[in-house]
């Protein structure tokens, strides 16, 4: 298991090098002078030159890149924001944390509702209930997230005054963003759960369970659900990744200081250290999330244990085989 985790973390290195080179190239080849941008139009040419020297912008590009990477590796230094002059890492960490909380809450809400609806429509396939569930979940998928967000604000903040319309100063502030992202993902979970549940319910081992005299409820929840959840877990992983960095629109609607909004602001301000640092940090976080999701598969599906833990599965198989031959 440890070997597998280490291997996956090593995969991170080429990914990060790729991401950093691309953004570094963008920074280098885009017209405009960051030093001038920081100091403003009123600054003298000398001041600008001085700033360029300070930022290391006069060095050859490979040297700049090398220094940047060296800073990250040795001091965890992702550079300073051009705008505020503060280290990018310390600016991003709290925002990333906020985004992560909202995303996690949203995924839990979406997956819970989605899986439940999926089970219901699989059990009631081809009935009015099934079609009803499909229509409702399609509705939430088709309406853009920010529209749902605005409606939620209208209802809960403006009319009912139960939730704050803006900001996350209190825990109530998290509810609407979570709900909004969560509801939008319900449809995909519902559909995945429905189709995988229907497939699983047709499997031979479900018939075996019936032949044992097991009740339909136990069959659904003890036999079918765990098998049906495998594709759902895969989709949870993808959704987590997409939402963390991609929540810009909703972060704007709800006034949440999240990482998506931070990066978009940094792009419009040509604040390259923030863009670069943000992209790298998100890449690291996503890799770790994906790793955790992959590990969680083992908990759901024991067949993967052999493949994931021993890499190819060959070692474990060898151990099992002689025993099999002996007893059979």
């Amino acid at each position: 298991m440890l070997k597998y985790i280490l291997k996956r973390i090593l995969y991170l290195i080429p990914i990060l090098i790729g991401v950093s080179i691309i953004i570094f190239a963008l920074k280098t080849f885009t017209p405009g002078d960051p030093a001038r941008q920081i100091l403003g139009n009123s600054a003298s040419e000398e001041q600008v030159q001085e700033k360029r020297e300070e930022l290391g912008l006069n060095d050859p590009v490979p040297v700049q890149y090398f220094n940047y990477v060296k800073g990250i590796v040795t001091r965890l230094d992702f550079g300073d924001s051009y705008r505020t002059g503060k280290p990018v890492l310390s600016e991003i960490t709290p925002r990333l944390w906020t985004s992560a909380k909202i995303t996690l809450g949203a995924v839990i809400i979406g997956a819970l509702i989605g899986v439940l609806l999926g089970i219901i429509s699989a059990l009631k396939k081809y009935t009015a209930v099934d079609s009803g569930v499909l229509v409702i979940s399609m509705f939430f998928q088709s309406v853009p997230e920010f529209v749902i967000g605005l409606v939620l604000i209208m209802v809960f903040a403006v009319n009912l005054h139960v939730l704050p319309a803006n900001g996350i100063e209190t825990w109530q502030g998290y509810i609407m963003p979570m709900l909004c992202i969560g509801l939008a993902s319900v449809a995909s979970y519902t559909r995945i759960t429905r189709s995988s549940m229907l497939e699983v319910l047709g499997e031979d081992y479900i018939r075996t369970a019936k032949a044992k005299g097991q009740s339909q409820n136990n069959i659904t929840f003890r036999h079918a659900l765990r098998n049906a959840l495998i594709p759902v877990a895969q989709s949870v992983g993808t959704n987590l990744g997409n939402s963390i960095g991609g929540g810009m629109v909703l972060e704007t609607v709800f006034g949440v200081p999240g990482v998506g909004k931070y990066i978009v602001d940094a792009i419009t301000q040509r604040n390259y250290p923030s863009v670069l640092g943000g992209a790298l940090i998100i890449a690291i976080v996503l890799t770790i999330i994906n790793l955790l999701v992959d590990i969680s598969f083992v908990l759901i599906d024991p067949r993967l244990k052999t493949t994931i833990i021993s890499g190819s599965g060959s070692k474990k198989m060898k151990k099992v085989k002689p025993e099999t031959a002996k007893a059979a």
Partner: protein
Amino acid sequence: MSENILKVKDLVIHYETDEEVVEAVNNISFEIKKGEVLGIVGETGAGKTTTALGIMGLLPDKVGHVIQGSIELEGENLFDKSEREMRKVRGKKISMIFQDPMTALNPVKTVGEQISEVILLHDQCSKAEALLRAQKMLAMVGIVPERYKDYPHQFSGGMKQRIVIAIALACEPELLIADEPTTALDVTIQAQILDMMRSLQQKQGTSMILITHDLGVVAEMCDHCAVMYAGELVEYGTVEEVFDNPQHPYTKALYQSIPSLDKDVERLHVVPGAVTDPSKLPSYCSFADRCTEKCELCEKGDPECTEVNAEHWVKCFTYQQKKEGK
């Protein structure tokens, strides 16, 4: 060996879809005595599995319908029972072994859990006790009991079928239905599994329905033999009677298609024609179109059961005429 465990009477099962009605089982009747093994043979699509699923009450939802007939288990009609009552019958009184062991076990549960599940459902006992009994069952089917913690994918096909058998026999059922239990297995494993089933069946005194298309298996395992064609039983009798003195042209054709080691043949004998489509059954004898011995009556009506002797009957006009002629 006298009282009847199972009595199937005039059973008719149809599969109904929007497009067509498949007459899978047509008016079959048979009985099984305590401790007896009945072999049901026939080609694919003859309705063998449907009969078994009908007995288990596991016909596919909405599509499979019992049109008429009764299935009595120890004198009680199973069709009168509610779904809740049927759940107490399945696994406890009647259990079933399915054809393909590769897919019959839940991949995400340990085999110990899967065996103890059926024990917990039907017998009052604690989880620990059930697990202990599950381990005993594993030992009984020839698997190291310590492997109860393993998952199905860690076993070979033959061992999976042993586990399926362990599940089926865990509650010592009155009747075991084995639906082609060895078809999916390697030939070398087949004999082992059959031997084991035979000895466990004798040990527990279980009655058994063995569904197969392998006549050799029937000869080895069964007391009685029923030959099924297009949803009908066409011949029934003790194994000795049916094997030594087959009367139905279909049964005879089946025997002829067993390759002989003594004779040097270039081609195996085949039953001419294709299996009758159960959605387009003729109004006359359903085997008539493939029959090599048909008479003028065969395409006019459906034959009745004619007794060959007390332990043997056949459903065939040609035999009926032959007998009356004598």
